[in-house]
């Protein structure tokens, strides 16, 4: 380039180049919180075309980006400054990692020259997050920005998705450079499924007597719901799902036996324990799903289908392993109806009827499972963003999901505090959908500050707060497994949640009587703007059934036969 030409090129700051790279990668919304080392990026953000949502804690920003990534299947983006800003993101990054959610995280960092000197707000966020990212970068030179950002988005979204962190030192963010175009980078290639393994699976299914399908979160993440449903319908197989697979088939599908696992439906758990061929699609044999692993599906030959070769034989050695993109694999599986004995089909049907959820609980108070069932059937397509605890399991058990993206839950990490910011991320991504955050009185306090975010942007999230004045799931375990030695679970001195919500600018309603439920559900759903329905429930209510830790899945406590109530 001649000197004359060079002088006509308008140089950009690293921060401007970062914003341009985000826009080029299709980013419209980012969630974050400014601070010292990332101030140049926030300076470039103004009037950039990117819409930034100021969350009131970096963890909230990370969870919002997570949910945004789940519902759009595009990387959700969050950003924070160095030091405490970055460390506050870590729980959200771990959440995205364990649930395979596409996310790009941008952290400010102290200038290169100050790194390694214990500078103000310096932490090694690259090092801290190594175990919980799919990949990460430190941008050392302004010339690397475009290539790094392009590759980060590709990695976050391709294959088995995950969080990718970009640490962005301040000196790089202010350095000047000529405009940068998209650069070609290494493209992820999907593994080619082995045809002979597919044939083996088909032969096994043709001869099966008691076959069963488990749909995992991979069906959802891999955008293979349609292929999964076609496979289930074509094969005639009974089906269960993991927590993250809920909605892979519709809740009311007659082939659906309910969720399996620790708080699964007994029909599903009995079917898994007695099946002879088990097709496990896009799942990872998580301990909350399998119970005691050595007793899981003891009579089954397993066909494991996943896009990630590192999941094969991690916990259960399959008889057939098919590594590839789920959709194309499912399309080749079971071209005709699978083998299944008439007695197995009848047995599954009988289990489904026998263990259908009951809502005739004794007691005078509001029965949360019935409320959740009614709420989820009051409108089509409600998106539920859950916190973690008893209410989370009740949502999984009792809500109706026609589409898996109606269910946002912190499955792998089990992070209390996920619900409210996740609801924000989902609502920002899809403003026309009804988004309900279901929380508990423990969880809501983990990120209650995000009520201010609802108010600031007028984000019309509905909060259903199930308040039993206790850390319910911990209390339940202490009751059952620690001889009722209740330790640090009493929350009877909770604040007045309706009053707190009103102080944040939300509308609030508190109820405690079953007769108030129907009208209050309508109030919540019809209310314009953000609102909270605060529901007082019985502190001693438990989540049933329950597979005790370390037990096989069919050894459930609190079964209907044993008299759950």
């Amino acid at each position, binding site marked *: 380039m001649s000197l004359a030409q060079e002088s006509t090129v308008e140089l950009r700051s690293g921060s401007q180049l970062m914003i341009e790279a985000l826009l080029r990668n299709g980013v419209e919304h980012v969630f974050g919180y400014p601070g010292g080392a990332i101030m140049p990026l926030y300076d470039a953000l103004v009037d950039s075309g990117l819409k930034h949502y100021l969350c009131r804690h970096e963890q909230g920003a990370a969870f919002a980006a997570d949910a945004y990534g789940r519902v759009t299947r595009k990387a959700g983006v969050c950003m924070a400054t160095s030091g405490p800003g970055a460390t506050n993101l870590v729980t959200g990054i771990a959440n995205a990692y364990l649930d395979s959610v596409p996310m790009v995280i941008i952290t400010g960092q102290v200038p290169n020259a100050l790194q390694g000197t214990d500078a103000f707000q310096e932490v090694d966020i*690259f*090092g801290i997050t190594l*175990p919980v990212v799919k*990949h*990460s970068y430190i941008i*050392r030179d302004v010339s690397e920005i475009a290539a790094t950002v392009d590759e980060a988005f590709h*990695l976050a979204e391709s294959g088995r998705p995950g969080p990718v962190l970009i640490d962005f030192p301040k000196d790089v963010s202010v350095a000047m450079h000529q405009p940068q175009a998209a650069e070609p980078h290494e493209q992820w290639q999907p593994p080619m499924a082995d045809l002979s393994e597919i044939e083996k699976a088909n032969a096994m299914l043709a001869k099966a007597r008691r076959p069963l399908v488990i749909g995992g979160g991979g069906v959802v993440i891999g955008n293979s719901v349609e292929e999964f449903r076609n496979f289930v319908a074509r094969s005639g197989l009974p089906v269960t799902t993991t927590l993250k697979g809920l909605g892979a088939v519709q809740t009311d599908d007659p082939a659906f036996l309910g969720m399996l696992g620790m708080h699964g439906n007994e029909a599903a758990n009995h079917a898994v324990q007695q099946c002879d061929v088990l097709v496990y699609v896009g799942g990872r044999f998580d301990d909350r799903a399998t119970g005691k692993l050595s007793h899981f599906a003891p009579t089954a030959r397993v066909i494991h289908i996943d896009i990630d070769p*590192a999941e*094969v034989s991690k916990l259960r050695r399959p008889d057939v392993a098919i590594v590839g993109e789920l959709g194309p694999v499912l399309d080749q599986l079971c071209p005709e109806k699978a083998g299944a004995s008439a007695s197995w089909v009848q047995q599954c049907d009988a289990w489904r009827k026998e263990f259908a959820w009951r809502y005739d609980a004794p007691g005078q108070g509001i029965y949360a499972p019935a409320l959740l069932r009614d709420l989820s059937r009051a409108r089509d397509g409600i998106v539920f963003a859950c916190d973690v605890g008893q209410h989370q399991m009740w949502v999984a058990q009792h809500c109706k999901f026609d589409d898996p993206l109606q269910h946002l839950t912190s499955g792998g990490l089990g992070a209390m505090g996920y619900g409210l910011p996740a609801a924000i991320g989902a609502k920002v991504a899809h403003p026309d959908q009804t988004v309900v955050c279901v929380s508990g009185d423990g969880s809501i306090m983990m990120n209650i500050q995000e009520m201010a975010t609802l108010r600031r942007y007028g984000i019309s999230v509905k909060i259903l707060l199930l308040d039993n004045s206790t850390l319910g799931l911990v209390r339940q375990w202490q009751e059952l497994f620690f001889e009722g030695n209740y330790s640090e679970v009493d929350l009877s001195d909770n604040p007045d949640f309706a009053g707190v919500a009103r102080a944040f600018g939300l509308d609030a309603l508190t109820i405690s009587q079953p007769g108030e439920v129907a009208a209050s559900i309508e109030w919540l759903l019809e209310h314009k703007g953000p609102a909270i329905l605060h529901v007082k429930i019985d502190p001693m209510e438990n989540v049933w059934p329950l597979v005790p830790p370390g037990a096989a899945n069919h050894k459930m406590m609190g079964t209907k036969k044993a008299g759950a109530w």
Partner: protein
Amino acid sequence: MQHNLQIQLKSSEGAVLRTLGLIERRGFRIESMTLMEPGGDGRSLTVKVTSDRAIELLERQLARLHDVLWVDVKKPAANWSSNRLGN
């Protein structure tokens, strides 16, 4: 059970830390290691590990790291070191 791994890494920042961290987190004890930069792109990491866990699984977990170009599991230590290192 003892195994020897040869891992070809990109020369990207943090690749060594990321790889060794994964090995330990996944339940393998690092007995010894050598890092060489033979020229050209990338670095060569040889690691001797022990664990009761399946080495095939670790191999696949390493292979999915973006920093890892390829992984090779060598035969048990004695044969491998005499063949490859001549000592």
